[in-house]
């Protein structure tokens, strides 16, 4: 078996090699082969990790002194999702980013983003977590500002200021943890926190939540997201909305419910999650800019996932993770297609897409399918995952759970209205009928993402046999 360390080493090495040779063909080849190889690596480890988490020994120094890494079922699942999404987005970028500047650096920064994502799922050391978190943030800042126009620069600056405040909070939380535990290993910190004064742990966990929560777009600290995700190039929006915020959410939740298990944060998280759903859906409802609408919808979808996780039951965690898979596919597809809508019409406003379905019939149809799945229309994947979340909440009972169900259903109605508005415009009448479909690599990428959300329900039997151990990773530390 090849060591899971490759998850961190391979994309990092690929980024350096690209920059040294500075050749577009090589950069594309490497950034397609790396996620492909890592997806296969993830698949080869999946059967083992489903049975038992696989600790990784780094530089032959064991846990208290060395930096502990470990590959558990959740980590393998997330790594597979990240690698597969990155592969498809890079495929799309080969035609979408054809005319921009400095293309080699673009692929190199995407590889750095992958390094950080894999690092975050593998690490079991809180300071190492901070380092990978910073790599993730910095590569996102760079990618958001890629177009270098006014809006992108401002959005990136805003994102950087909030991200830097977040990392300040995160470091304070780490400092508090080190003070209590005298170690940076997550397991030792968790044990030390169990015996520590309560006020101390509460302070540390709140600092941690609002520190790393910036990247996970948890409700009060998500104001950067609509600007950043909408002014980034569409391929980048698909990466950021497709897996970066989900990954950050999973890591946030996992660390809060294991390392900071001494304080019960679940009620707080439920409230923040529902506030996020409402704020996201209401803001998306009023948007005229398609990508901004999708970005606000990401805020509300993150809220739905966080609500499912914070129910604190195994069924809730499993439903949340299935929804995460669905959202990754649907939102990536929507952003990627929106990118070509903007390229073909030169406008970001929905009203200018009148009758675009006649010029790009396949893309518009795929957009419609992905949007329907996001809303939760049967028999698409989104229906099953949302249904699972609602039934998990209903099983749990209690005022908060029923209030959550009401909020999610209300949000779904709003979401259906604004997404149907887009679909109606797309399939409206138009005098322009000249075909202007996406190039085939882009179309293939989008079609594969959409296939996941359309036929995802067929995966459910396979998924349900694996989701148990994967969801366990959210509340246990192996």
């Amino acid at each position, binding site marked *: 078996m090849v060591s899971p360390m490759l998850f961190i080493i391979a994309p990092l090495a690929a980024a350096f090699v690209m920059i040294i040779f500075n050749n577009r063909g090589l950069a594309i080849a490497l950034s397609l082969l790396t996620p492909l190889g890592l997806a296969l690596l993830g698949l080869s480890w999946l059967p083992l990790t489903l049975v038992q988490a696989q600790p990784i020994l780094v530089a032959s120094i064991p846990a208290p002194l060395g930096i502990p890494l470990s590959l558990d079922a959740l980590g393998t699942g997330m790594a597979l999702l990240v690698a597969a999404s990155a592969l498809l987005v890079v495929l799309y970028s080969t035609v979408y980013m054809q005319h921009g500047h400095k293309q080699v650096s673009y692929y190199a920064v995407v590889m750095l983003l992958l390094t950080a994502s894999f690092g975050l799922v593998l690490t079991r050391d809180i*300071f190492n977590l901070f*380092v990978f978190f*910073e790599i993730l943030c*910095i590569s996102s*800042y*760079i990618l958001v*500002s890629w177009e*270098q*126009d*006014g*809006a992108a*620069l*401002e*959005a*990136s*600056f*805003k994102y*950087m*200021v909030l991200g*830097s*405040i977040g*990392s*300040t909070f995160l*470091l*304070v939380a*780490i*400092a508090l943890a*080190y*003070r209590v535990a005298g170690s*940076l290993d997550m397991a030792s910190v968790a044990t030390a926190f169990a015996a520590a004064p309560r006020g101390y742990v509460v302070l540390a966990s709140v600092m941690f939540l609002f520190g790393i929560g910036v990247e996970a777009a948890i409700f009060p600290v998500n*104001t950067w997201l609509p*600007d950043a995700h909408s*002014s980034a190039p569409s391929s980048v929006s698909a990466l950021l909305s497709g897996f970066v915020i989900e990954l950050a959410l999973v890591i946030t939740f996992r660390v809060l419910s294991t390392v900071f298990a001494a304080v019960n944060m679940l009620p707080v998280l439920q409230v923040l999650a529902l506030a996020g759903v409402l704020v996201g859906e209401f803001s998306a409802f009023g948007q005229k800019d398609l990508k901004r609408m999708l970005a606000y919808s990401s805020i509300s979808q993150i809220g739905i996932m966080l609500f499912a996780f914070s129910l604190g039951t195994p069924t809730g965690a499993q439903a949340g993770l299935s929804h995460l898979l669905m959202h990754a596919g649907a939102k990536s597809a929507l952003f990627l297609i929106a990118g070509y809508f903007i390229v073909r019409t030169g406008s970001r406003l929905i009203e200018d897409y009148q009758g675009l379905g006649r010029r790009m019939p396949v893309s518009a149809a795929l957009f419609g399918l992905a949007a329907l799945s996001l809303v939760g229309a049967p028999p698409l994947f989104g229906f099953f995952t949302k249904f699972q979340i609602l039934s998990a909440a209903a099983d749990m009972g209690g005022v908060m759970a029923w209030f959550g169900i009401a909020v999610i259903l209300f949000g779904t109605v709003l979401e259906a209205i604004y997404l149907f508005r887009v679909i109606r415009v797309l399939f409206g009448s138009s005098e322009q009928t000249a075909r202007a479909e996406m190039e085939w690599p882009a179309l293939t990428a989008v079609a594969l993402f959409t296939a996941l959300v359309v036929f995802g329900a067929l995966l459910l039997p396979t998924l349900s046999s694996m989701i148990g151990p994967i969801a366990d990773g959210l509340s246990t530390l192996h």
Partner: protein
Amino acid sequence: MISTAQILYVTSFALILIGLYAVVTQRNLIRIVIGLNVSDVGINLLLVTLGFIDGGKVPIFAPGQAAGLMVDPVPQALVLTSIVIGFGVTALMLTLVMRIYAHHGTIDASRLRGLKW
């Protein structure tokens, strides 16, 4: 009696708060960057203070050096990493400020449409 460590803790938290206050209240983008830098310094001071022992020695094993009197080397390693990351982020932020100035001719956040928050 106030110990050196207590003074350092208070100073580091004060620096963090001063920096964050500057970020929230200032409209000039360069001042916002400076504010973030000030709170970075506060964090670094906090981390070093965690390993501080009054009258402690350099953490190198030598004849006559007992481990109990050495300052904790781990926070110092963390600070080194944190300084490097802070430097990188500051450089990137200043580059962005430069580009924003080239585009809009201003670095006043209240005149930039996208930076009102």
